[in-house]
């Protein structure tokens, strides 16, 4: 906080504007203007193969609703979101509980924990292609060593299995951040609470249910929102692991195909807008139901 003093009148008043203007110009030009573009152009027919650009009301949305691939990708994405948010939150809480109390080597474990977060999703797709490979893969190698099932687990055969396997790769990437966020919330819980609970004869599991979970809610809410945003927009992992196959195509993949392969930008805008609105709504709902201000 600076006190507004005579300095302001001496012309220092322009300095803050000079300092913030590059960032503000970037945001206006390359975030806000494009966002407005997306909203407005959703209601226009913008098709490189069908010019000119013209107003089309809800035409794009109607065509999207009748497109089997789009409807299928909405179902797929719902599954990605469900599997990904649940798994990354549960695993994130579990990892945070393991790392809650200090022990020798904890910082090394945290460094290894965040490693998958730091790697590009595309390359993680390549890494896991090796794990899932029908012949040379780790999963099917272990399965056949144990004489469990001949052909093993395959990508692309069954929709649910495919989506679960692909989403596991994304969970590998986003769980570390969930764990860190929950861990940060756990660090704020005073030890005395656990000591008091132990004196009262409260077991570890019951302390987890009645102390850890409720007091970690702010961290859990933020972790869930980040997982939701990431999974609703999943692209890299299904693109690499499953290509253009419709078995597991996500909405973002479908947006990419519609816009940059079919060159129907209008429908692409409409689909992006729908995903954005869905993301904001679902995030708000999670914050409303999971987030609680915790006063300690």
């Amino acid at each position, binding site marked *: 906080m600076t006190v507004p003093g005579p300095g302001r009148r001496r012309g220092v008043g322009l300095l*803050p504007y000079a300092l913030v203007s590059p960032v503000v110009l970037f*945001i206006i030009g*390359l*975030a806000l203007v494009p966002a407005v573009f997306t909203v407005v152009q959703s209601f226009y027919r913008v098709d490189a193969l069908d010019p000119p650009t013209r107003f089309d009301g809800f035409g794009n949305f109607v065509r999207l609703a009748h497109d089997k691939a789009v409807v299928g990708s909405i179902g797929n994405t719902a599954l990605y979101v469900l599997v990904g948010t649940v798994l990354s939150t549960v695993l994130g809480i579990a990892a945070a509980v393991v790392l809650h109390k200090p022990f020798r080597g904890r910082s090394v474990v945290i460094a290894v924990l965040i490693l998958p977060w730091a790697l590009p999703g595309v390359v993680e797709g390549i890494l896991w292609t090796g794990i899932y490979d029908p012949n040379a893969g780790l999963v099917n190698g272990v399965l056949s060593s144990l004489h469990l099932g001949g052909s093993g687990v395959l990508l692309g055969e069954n929709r649910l299995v495919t989506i679960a396997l692909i989403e596991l790769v994304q969970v590998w990437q986003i769980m570390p951040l969930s764990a860190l966020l929950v861990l940060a919330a756990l660090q704020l819980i005073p030890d005395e609470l656990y000591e008091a609970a132990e004196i009262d004869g409260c077991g570890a599991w019951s302390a987890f249910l009645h102390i850890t979970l409720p007091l970690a809610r702010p961290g859990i809410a933020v972790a869930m929102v980040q997982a939701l945003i990431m999974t609703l927009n999943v692209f890299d992992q299904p693109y690499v692991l499953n290509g253009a196959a419709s078995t597991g195509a996500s909405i973002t993949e479908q947006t990419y195909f519609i816009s940059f392969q079919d060159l129907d930008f209008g429908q692409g805008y409409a689909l992006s807008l729908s995903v954005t609105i869905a993301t904001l709504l679902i995030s708000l709902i999670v914050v409303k139901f999971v987030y609680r201000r915790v006063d300690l």
Partner: protein
Amino acid sequence: MRRRAGRWRWVGVGLILLWSLVPIYWALKSSFQTEADARATPVRYVPTNPTLQNFRTLLAGDSDVSDQIRRSAVNIVVECTLATVVTVVLATLAAFAFARMRFRGSRILFYSVLATMAFPAYTTLIPLYRIMSSFELVNTYTGIVLVYVSGFLPLATWVLHNYFAGLPASIEEAGRVDGATRLQVLWYLVLPLARPGIISTALITFLFAWAQFLFPLVLSSDLSTQPLTVVIASLQGRHVVPFTLLNAAGVLAIVVPAFIALAFNRYIVNGLLAGSTK
């Protein structure tokens, strides 16, 4: 009771380490095998006859694939470095003003910068492509870096704002009393104190840039600007590149981010927490 809890913790620690490291180990193992060894049944869990042939092919070979890997490795380093430098410099200036100066409209400007973080990144994919293409910036470093910077600025500004806001005001006041200008205060007094925050921001921005895929997939059309991530995905999509070579390429693409994550994890953890809480 306490000893039992300790044993469970080590089980948990073991599971965390396995979960993070097994997929990386598997790619490393495959990258040191010949194609025949990697495809042998039953599956070989360790490279019994390790070979550097895959890495030699990628780094020193004269095939099409080696050219693509080498050029795209240069591209990704150039794009990530430029995007990081521009993002950190601009975000530092703005965050300092937002955290330390009072001026009309500061609140609304600050919140509009932050509000764009709520949009999913891909909301603006198509309009950004069309803007870049109307300025003929598709398939240029400039176009890609501009898009990266616009995407990373809100988080960088937020993290740095929190660092600056947490520094004691007395330091600046002392500098002002001694007759230093605002910019001298920023340069000589505030920046050295905010160094951990600036390093965190730079590392996280660099990692974000390194991980980009869909934006460069759309914004770069050939090898003159395609980063490693785009080239690796296209090699995988062609199904003719050997499995072990693909894994070696994957290993090359994770060396830099893995090193950053392991060597500077404290900065990254602090930066991530400063950015996503409060």
